[in-house]
Each structure stands twice: as structure tokens, then as C-alpha cells.
């Protein structure tokens, strides 16, 4: 039995961890390397670092940050944000990333998924999908949620899988930042339609939300940011709670 994974997400802007609500109003949360080390010690199963820098200097800072994270961390980590070519992916792999997450660039050129998967294997490729419900249809958004990608969630997720994605990271923009719970029904449908692992993101507010997610949706992992960064839900407490609910989780003694 594989453990359900708990994944803190660190949005990185110019070398600092930040957090915004619905992708706006950024607040500084701390040093990404130190936060990663702390989360690993607390029992996080994996980490995601997203580069949300808008400048070239920011991108350069991020690459050296990835090296420092790889130096420090003893659990796997994924990096994403601004990856637009297979060479970008190579640079991140060479800096020590275990996986990369593709979003807008894969929407622009879906063959990018195939290129990276062919070079480094599907286990290296996470496809991140941000979507929101419009007129009863889950519409995929790109460029940090600002623009419509003119794609539908389930159709795009299945295409990403068939092109070689190893995992799908689905963020419901309607739930992100609300702390009202994950998009459980949509995630259940997504998990049903895919044969690769699904990471759920957006909406975590309390431990019950995680338990509900795992019990009702079939999601393989849950990703959250502010509830961990702000200390609302300590990871050891969350994991003990999930274990008491019968969810298989990895507990550190």
C-alpha cells in the first residue's frame, strides 16, 4: 500500500517563499531552503517549489535555489514555474530536481510533455492544471490563472497522460485560497478517468478537508501552502489525524 502523500507547496518569488490569495496579494513567508528542511523534518512526503518570478534575474536566482534545496533536502521535490523548453527541464534536472511541473508551456505546445518524458521518463514529468468552473464546465487557465487556455479539464488531463505525464497536479482556482475544502467531486471524477497519480490542490483549511479528500476522491496526494506556512495545520498532527481516520500515511517516529 502506497502512502497518501502530503505536499507543502512553496511559491518562490525573487528567492523568498511567498503566498497570495487567488494568485494575487503576495506576502513573504520565509527562506525556501529552511522551510523545506523544516517540512521534511516534520514528515512532509514531498515538496513543490514554484518559481513565480517575472524577471530574468528571478529565474537565475531560482536555479541556484534549486541547487541549495537539492543539497539540503532528503525527500523528493518537484520544481515548476516558467519552464518553457526541454532544455529548461534539463537545467532543473542538472540542478537536482526530482521532477518538473509543466503548465502554460505544455498548453501552448503539448509535444513538450512527450519531449521531456522521452528524455527523462514519465516519473520526471508532472503536468499542472489550473482550472475554474464556468457555465458548468471546468475551463483550464494559463499564465498563472490569468488567461483562458480554451481547453476543458478532463480532456486536457487525459491528453497530458497519453503524451507521457507521470502525474497530474490539479488546482481548482475556485477553491484555492478559500480554506473551504478541496474540489472533491471534481477530483473523484478526474481520478476515475486517469491511470496516473493525481495531486489535489486548492482549498485546504483544516484536517477534515484532507480526510474527506482521500476518502472520497481517490487522490494520491494533497498539496497545500498557507495552512502549512501559517502553522494552522502542523503536518505531524495532520498525519496522526489521517491515520486515525484509516488513511494510509507515513508517520515519522
Amino acid at each position, binding site marked *: 500500500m502506497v*502512502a497518501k*502523500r502530503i505536499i507543502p507547496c512553496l511559491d518562490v518569488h525573487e528567492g523568498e517563499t511567498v503566498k497570495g490569495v487567488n494568485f494575487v496579494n503576495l506576502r513573504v513567508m520565509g527562506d525556501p531552503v529552511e522551510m523545506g528542511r523544516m517540512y521534511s*523534518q516534520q514528515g512532509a512526503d514531498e515538496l513543490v517549489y514554484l518559481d513565480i518570478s517575472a524577471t530574468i534575474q528571478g529565474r537565475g536566482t531560482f536555479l541556484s535555489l534549486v541547487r541549495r534545496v537539492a543539497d539540503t533536502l532528503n525527500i523528493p521535490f518537484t520544481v515548476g514555474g516558467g519552464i518553457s523548453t526541454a532544455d529548461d527541464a534539463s537545467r532543473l534536472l542538472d540542478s537536482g530536481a526530482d521532477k518538473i511541473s509543466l503548465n502554460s508551456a505544455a498548453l501552448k505546445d503539448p509535444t513538450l510533455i512527450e519531449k521531456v518524458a522521452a528524455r527523462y521518463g514519465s516519473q520526471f514529468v508532472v503536468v499542472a492544471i489550473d482550472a475554474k468552473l464556468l457555465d458548468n464546465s471546468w475551463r483550464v487557465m494559463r499564465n498563472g490563472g490569468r488567461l483562458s487556455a480554451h481547453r476543458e479539464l478532463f480532456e486536457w488531463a487525459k491528453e497530458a497522460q497519453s503524451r507521457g505525464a507521470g502525474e497530474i497536479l490539479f488546482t481548482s482556482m475556485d477553491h484555492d485560497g478559500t480554506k473551504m475544502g478541496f474540489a472533491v467531486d471534481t477530483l473523484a471524477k478526474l481520478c476515475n478517468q486517469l491511470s496516473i497519480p493525481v495531486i489535489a490542490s486548492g482549498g485546504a483549511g483544516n484536517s477534515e478537508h484532507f480526510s474527506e479528500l482521500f476518502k472520497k476522491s481517490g487522490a494520491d496526494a494533497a498539496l497545500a501552502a498557507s495552512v502549512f506556512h501559517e502553522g494552522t495545520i502542523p503536518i505531524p498532527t495532520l498525519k496522526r489525524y489521517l491515520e486515525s481516520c484509516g488513511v494510509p500515511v507515513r508517520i515519522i517516529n
Partner: protein
Amino acid sequence: MVSIIDYGTGNIFSLCNAVKRAGFDYAVTSDKDIITKSSHVILPGVGEASAVMKEIKKRGLDEVIKGLEIPVLGICIGMQVLCSYSEEGDTESLSVFPERVIKLRGDDIKIPHMGWNRVYSSGNLLFKGLDSGEWFYFVHSFAPEKGDSTISTTNYGVEFSSALNKENFYGTQFHPEKSGVAGERFLMNFLTMDTLK
């Protein structure tokens, strides 16, 4: 010094860092003299079986590896090439371990097997200080069958060998370098093994 064998492929960054954090000097090398004179040898876990075997043979390392009398640890694909055969690429391997490597199969399992799973061990020195049932991190689609060299098992669709040992040769299907504190302890157990048998 620890030799990490260079197959010329893939990313061994995290393994090098884990060895460094454990406080050991290492060289990433395919040089026979360096390998045979090192204290411990690690075959890292990147690549595909037939490609890795080809690289090992091209570098003339197949007989060198089989002849080593110091502690040797194969990780993931590094262990699989120490087995007798792999279904991946229909590959005849080094046959240090008699076990065969087969594709994971089972109802309702996702391939690759990716994430944290329990490792049930029984008293081998490599697992000193670790509980049977401890969690380790896996990323793989193939695994060795159970056999005489099995020192731990893991369940995923089927029960497979998650670690092997025969004489001075050890292997793990999981990635100790990615397995948190348990992985650090495991690597330390290997790296502090007595070189003189």
C-alpha cells in the same frame, strides 16, 4: 573513499549529496583503479536496464564489479543490473544475485510505483536501528522477484524484493537518498560497514 559508478547517464545529484551529508568523500567514476581501491561502491539508480548494462560493458566494468570484495550497494536500477536478468529490454545482467527482475503487475495498481511504501525487513545489518515496516521512497516499474537473496519485501500489486544481499553485495529497490531520516540511517549503515571481510 566511496566510489559512485558513472554510467554516463542521468542525475545522481541527490545520491552524491546524501553521501556528502553523511560525511563521506566520494568520487563519481568509471575508473577501475579508483573503484577497486575504494572503501565502498555504489551503483546509482538512474537509467534503463539494457542501456545501463551496455554502459557497464562498454567501460569494461562488468567483471570489475563482479570481482569486488568491498561492500557494494546497488540502488534501484543499480540493484537490478546485479540480478540475473531483467524483463526491461530483455537484459542479461551481472548475475551477482540469482533473482530475476520482472515488470510490476497486479489489479488496479498505477505504474510506475511512485511514492512511499513499507519495507518489511528481517534483521539484516543494513536495517540496523530501523523498524520492519519502515517507509521508504520508491520510483520504479520493474522489481526483483523474491528469492534466496531477499532481505526485505514490499507489497505493490505483488510482493517483491525491496532489498537483496549476497555476501558483500547489497541492493535496494527504494531510494535511500530520498527516504528522509530512515534513508539517512540506512545509507549510514551501509557506509559504515567494515570493508575488510
